């Protein structure tokens, strides 16, 4: 019997070594530790042995049984660990696969720039006002010191709108700039005001890479007692820094717009070449970004503001120019061509 037990131990342990999964391990357990297993059989048969043999064989049988149980436990742990590892590996994701696509909308680049401009001025206390795109000659020109026959009318090639006026007094047009909103708004407001007036504007103009007949402007107007050109410089300088970078320099030069006096042309130092001269700035180192000035006394009077008491400044700028400069867009006609391959490039801010 002792020989049998020793042999059993050898065979069982060899078999156990070959086991790799829980099913086989269970089969092994039943075979070597189950009720019908050889070892159990042996333990049951002990009573038929002599006392001496029983003592020896009993000790050996218990020893073999204990060894089997401990090997079993050890093996079970090992297999469970291996299976867990296998299962984990099977569940691992390819994290580089694309996620579920969401459709992506974007703002039109003009809207993005417009919002950015308005945001800067909003933070400086300016209120946003909008108005009509089809205008009377009065608001677009006459009230801005540009009467009929005035030479400055050439500065704004105009798209006129059919209008049969029985009195032949009024003519209608597509506004050539946002400046009529200065007059319109001040018909309803009293100073102090700080206003920005964004919107579409139109010109009678053949289109090319730099010219478009429909474009957007933002007009600004501030009227109060004691507003000076120094304030205009400060406000526009602040705008230039926030839009184009904190290290921007601004240049103010004399220019002419009939509804301001003195008039100003504002340029910033080129943010590509830092003023050294490059293609973007046509070698000058400066980029003109807007026209401005102190509100003309005649215009103030038309706004029912006494020019001896009140003063103010106004400015106007093109909006498309901002993304064109910033992103190097070569052709303004892309804006309203609405090719998605163009529009999709502008993520928004």
């Amino acid at each position, binding site marked *: 019997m002792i020989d049998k037990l020793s042999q059993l131990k050898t065979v069982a342990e060899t078999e156990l070594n070959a086991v790799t999964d829980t099913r086989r391990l269970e089969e092994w357990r039943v075979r070597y530790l189950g009720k019908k297993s050889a070892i159990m059989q042996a333990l049951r048969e002990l009573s038929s042995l002599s006392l001496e043999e029983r003592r020896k064989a009993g000790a050996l049988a218990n020893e073999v049984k204990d060894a089997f149980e401990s090997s079993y436990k050890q093996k079970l742990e090992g297999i469970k660990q291996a299976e867990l590892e296998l299962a984990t590996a099977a569940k691992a994701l390819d994290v580089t696969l694309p996620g579920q696509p969401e459709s992506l909308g974007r703002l039109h680049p003009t809207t993005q720039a417009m919002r950015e401009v308005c945001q800067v001025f909003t933070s400086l206390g300016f209120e946003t006002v909008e108005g009509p795109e089809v205008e009377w000659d009065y608001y677009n020109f006459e009230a801005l010191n540009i009467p009929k026959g005035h*030479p400055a009318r050439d500065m704004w090639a105009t798209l006129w709108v059919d209008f049969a006026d029985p009195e032949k007094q009024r003519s209608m047009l597509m506004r050539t700039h946002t400046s009529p909103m200065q007059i319109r708004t001040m018909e309803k407001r009293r100073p102090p005001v700080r206003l920005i007036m964004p919107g579409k504007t*139109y010109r009678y103009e053949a289109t090319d890479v730099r010219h478009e007949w429909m474009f957007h402007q933002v007009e600004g107007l501030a009227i109060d007692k004691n507003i000076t050109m120094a304030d205009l410089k400060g406000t526009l300088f602040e705008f230039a820094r926030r839009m184009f970078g904190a290290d921007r320099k601004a240049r103010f030069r004399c220019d002419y717009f009939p509804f301001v006096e003195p008039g100003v042309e504002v340029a910033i130092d080129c943010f590509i070449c830092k003023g050294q001269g490059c293609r973007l700035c046509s070698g000058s180192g400066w980029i003109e970004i807007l026209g401005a000035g102190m509100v003309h006394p005649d215009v103030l009077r038309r706004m029912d503001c006494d020019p001896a008491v009140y003063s103010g400044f106004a400015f106007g700028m093109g909006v498309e120019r901002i993304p064109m400069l910033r992103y190097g867009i070569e052709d303004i006609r892309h804006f309203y061509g609405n090719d998605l391959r163009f529009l999709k490039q502008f993520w928004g801010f």
Partner: protein
Amino acid sequence: MTLPRDDLARRLAQAGLEAGSVEIIGGQWDKIQVGHVTEVKPHPNADRLRLVTVALGDRMPTVVCGAPNVAVGQKIAFASVGAKLVDGHTGQPATLKPAKIRGVVSEGMVCSEKELGLSGDHTGILVLPADAPVGAALADLLGDTIFDIEVTPNRPDCLSVIGIAREVSALTSQPLHLPQIAYKEGREQVSGLASVDVVDPDLCPRYCAGVITNVKIGPSPEWLQRRLQAGGMRPINNVVDITNYVMLEHGQPLHAFDYAKLTDRKIVVRRARQGESLTSLDGVERPLNCEMLVIADSRRPVALAGVMGGANSEVSEATTAVLLESANFKRESVRETAAALNMRSEASARFEKGLSPELPVPALRRAMQLMVELAGGEAASGIIDVYPGKRERPPILFPASETKRLLGMELPVEKIKSVLESLGFGVEMAAPAQMSVNVPWWRTDVSQGADLVEEVARIVGYDQIPTTIMDAPIPPLEPSPLLSMKRTLTDLLVAAGMQEVITYSLISLEGLKRTTPDLDLPGPKPVRVSNPMSREHEYLRTSLRPRLLFHIAQNQRFEEGIKLFEIGHVYYPRHSDLPQEVETLCGAMWGLKQEMSWRTKPMPADFYDAKGALDAALVRLGVEAKYVKAEDVGLRSGACADIVVRGLKIGVIGEVHPKVVENFDAAGPVFLFEIDLEKLLPHAGTGVEYKPLPRFPATVRDMALVVDLGVQYQSIVDIVQDFPLVSRVALFDVYSGEQVPRGKKSLAFRIWYQSPDHTLTDEEVNGVQQRMLSALESKLGAVLRA
């Protein structure tokens, strides 16, 4: 001039006179000098070439020359080896190299105008004036710098050399040198030779004239021709060149009439008569109207005032006496006449800007002087001066504090005074800090204090003005609900995956018509632009649809799925008023609703995707919209609904009619929504109604109903929601097919029942559901699905 060229250009630009270009004539001429041709011999090996010996003072090189006009005794421009030239054939810059031409060594070159970069003329060599000093650098003789200055419309005085010189003088504190005007006057009085009658003084404030007899028409001297060319004008003959020269110098357009051709030696300034016409100098007969001012003799018009002369009184080779006109015409009149006849000229461009009525006299006298000096003429004594428009210009009272008030810059009174005086203003102190300023006659643009402030600022320099931030309290803001709604709506539609577009406001009639299946005009006849750039952009749009559909079609070549929207104005005509501009939203969808993916099958967008995107935006605006089956001429019947809020229609949604899609050469189906934002506005953002959280649990029941195919979801939900305790209803399945009878469909709902004050029992819920089912059955014929 003491200032370097670039500094001068910069100072002028700061002062409002920007040089669009600065052209330097002779900047490259360091190896070119004046030579004297001493000998011309035939080339031994070539018929067309000659050997030319040129005296330069210190040496006498011989060169090979092909020019036909070279001759002994000429002064010419000689280029030595290494000179930078323009290639006479290619027009490209080139450096002169030593050359052997047909066996003869050429030690330089005699230059043409083209080779010097003076003009495109390469027919012969440039012949210099006989008194040109031999050996002198050509740059000293012909070199020049041309500032091409962009003059703003308020400064017609700067459309002249003298005007710019005045500015430079003020900017550089250098004295101004004006031409000395003096000439010998003949014995004959001008009043005996001609008369001027200004019939329409409203259009002609001043008319001056002089007469010169015994003129000899011929070419102008070289220097005058060069200066004209530098000023962009073509030399013609001495008389015409003098009028142009004085115009460039003084800014006053002049006109020379052939004195002999003026009937009765009379000038009449009057409006044209009905039926009159005039053949202008360019040979075109121009019909005139009664608003046009003409210069006439006693019989007929001889010129269009301020615009162009007439052929019938033109100075010609045969002319021996001229009447010189130097006048002032009303700017609006010149502008209208020039525009009506499409005849913009150098003269009209100046008159249109409003010249000073004081300018004609000095300009006329200067021209008379040059006629005497350069055309051999004899000036009649005196000038004719008819000045019905004379106006006094009162001085401007100008407190020194105005510069501080408007510029924010403290300037001493003395500084202000000296700046103004440097520009020719007369300044007297009316009180210690109060100036009385007389405006010089040439400054037609200055009439009040603000103008003087600009004068001071631009001469001192805008860069000297300090930079400050407005420190007054921020004015109160008025709320703008439309603006904020538009902004939010835009963001929400973008968040719903739609691309914002901005499209042209003008469109063709055909474009609008394409939005209906039978190409009818939708809505009222649109407002028209009087001078459209093209038929494509002729009418103010009454709908955003056509451009959106156009852009869908245009992008279909490159995309699998497109979702666009625009928020913009449409324009409806109004009687004798500006069009009504209505803020409108339009959205359109076509193709795959999402990009291709490995997880989900490609699904085309449909009506419910359009509705979902719109509804998501509306819900976030606090608007609950109902969709009511409707018809729209541009949308497919049966796939179209009105969008209704609180009983009012605010827009439509539906599938674009297949024929409309075809009209735009697009692929379908396209789904579209359109909302009048001004109708939406009163309902948007109308506040949040807070409810406390429920304290008792909800009971959830599912219920599948079988109804006729024609029964609408909304009618079921309306009934269900009407029952007490129903807190929420969700539709989770719609089915029609084999599992339900023909002509029927099944809708599966999940319904949440909840009470604010107790936990519901099954009996309560069953009771409600029972009543609900019988209501659904009696009103809609609905039965529970087995």
